């Protein structure tokens, strides 16, 4: 294989370890041109640490796209134990998300919020937005946030 990134056009030696994009790794692996290594954030050591206390793990620092990449990579390797880890981890963190969803924006939940992967954050925002709209409806305030900010901006002019 010619490694075209180098301007000198050197060939890539066999048995070298290089990092490539996932899409390229997928393609090369399908053609049986490379052997893939599991990334650190999905390895056995990580799996043990993660399953010991899924809620405490800071997935955002490790890999914000943890679940999406985990799904692709477990598919590449045909590794069902990786899939099991992803499911168990998500199930545990998902329970925590439900418990905290009503008061999500408060400061006490900032530590957990800062550890979420992007998929979890998406779930949280969905739940929180629905609950916030329901709360607003229950209290009788169905004005949109745009209307509210327009009203706030208009008030200083009115007070003059």
């Amino acid at each position, binding site marked *: 294989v010619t490694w075209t990134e180098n301007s000198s056009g050197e060939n890539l030696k066999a048995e070298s370890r290089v990092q490539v994009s996932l899409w390229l790794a997928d393609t090369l692996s399908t053609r049986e041109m490379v052997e893939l290594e599991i990334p650190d954030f999905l390895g056995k050591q990580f799996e043990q640490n993660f399953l010991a206390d899924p809620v405490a793990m800071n997935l955002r620092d490790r890999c914000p796209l943890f*679940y999406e990449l*985990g*799904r*692709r990579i*477990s*598919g590449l390797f*045909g*590794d*069902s134990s*990786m*899939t*099991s880890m*992803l*499911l168990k981890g*998500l*199930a545990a963190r*998902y*329970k925590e998300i*439900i*418990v905290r969803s009503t008061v999500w924006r408060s400061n006490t939940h900032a530590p957990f919020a800062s550890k979420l992967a992007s*998929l979890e954050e*998406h*779930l949280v925002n*969905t*739940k929180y937005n*629905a*609950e916030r*709209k*329901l709360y607003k*409806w*229950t209290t*009788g305030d*169905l004005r949109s946030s745009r209307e509210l900010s327009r009203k706030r901006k208009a008030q200083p002019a009115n007070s003059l």
Partner: protein
Amino acid sequence: RERERERERLPGLAMSQLLSIKETEFVAQDQLITILPNFRMPEISLVAGIIGPFEPQQPVQVPLWLALQLRKEGKCGIIAPDWLDIDNLQATEAQERQDEKNFTPLPYHYAEIASMLLKTAQSDVKDSRKVRTVLANISDLRSCKIKSGLKSIKGKVDFIKLNNISAMELYGIRKFSIKTLNTFKSLSQATGYEPSQISQSASFGNSTQSQSQFSQEDDF
């Protein structure tokens, strides 16, 4: 614009599944309710059907939207439905407290109907303050049950069955539940993984269907 953003985020979902709060309220206004008009008018033919005739102080059933409009104009009094009676509501609250898993049967649009009646026809609802408090308690109890049920989802779930859930409660969990189910399913499909635990199956049910237990094998 909001609808376009929704479509991008949730491709493949029919728009009809993404009812907003206002749309849910709008649909609720089709429910029939009894009024006591103080005017006389022959029957009127609407798309939904024939309504009336209207005779002073003769009870007649009309859609809620019409009842509210007439009430606002001072042309009728509204007879609150039986389930909104304070004694019945307190019995419902007691039943909700007693049964930790199942929802007590209530009209599908109970929250919207109660909210609109208490807003527009508060004087027609007996003990309206107490009714508000009891309704809030019922809503809290049911929402706790929903949360504990959602927490029990551990893996790939094909569908969730929620008997006697109301429209507003469904709104609160609809998008989140669909995304959750899709997420768990896509993760488990990565390697054709089938968890060794009993595969959970329950369906998102229409609350107007028969009143059966939750069908998930785990407690929900």
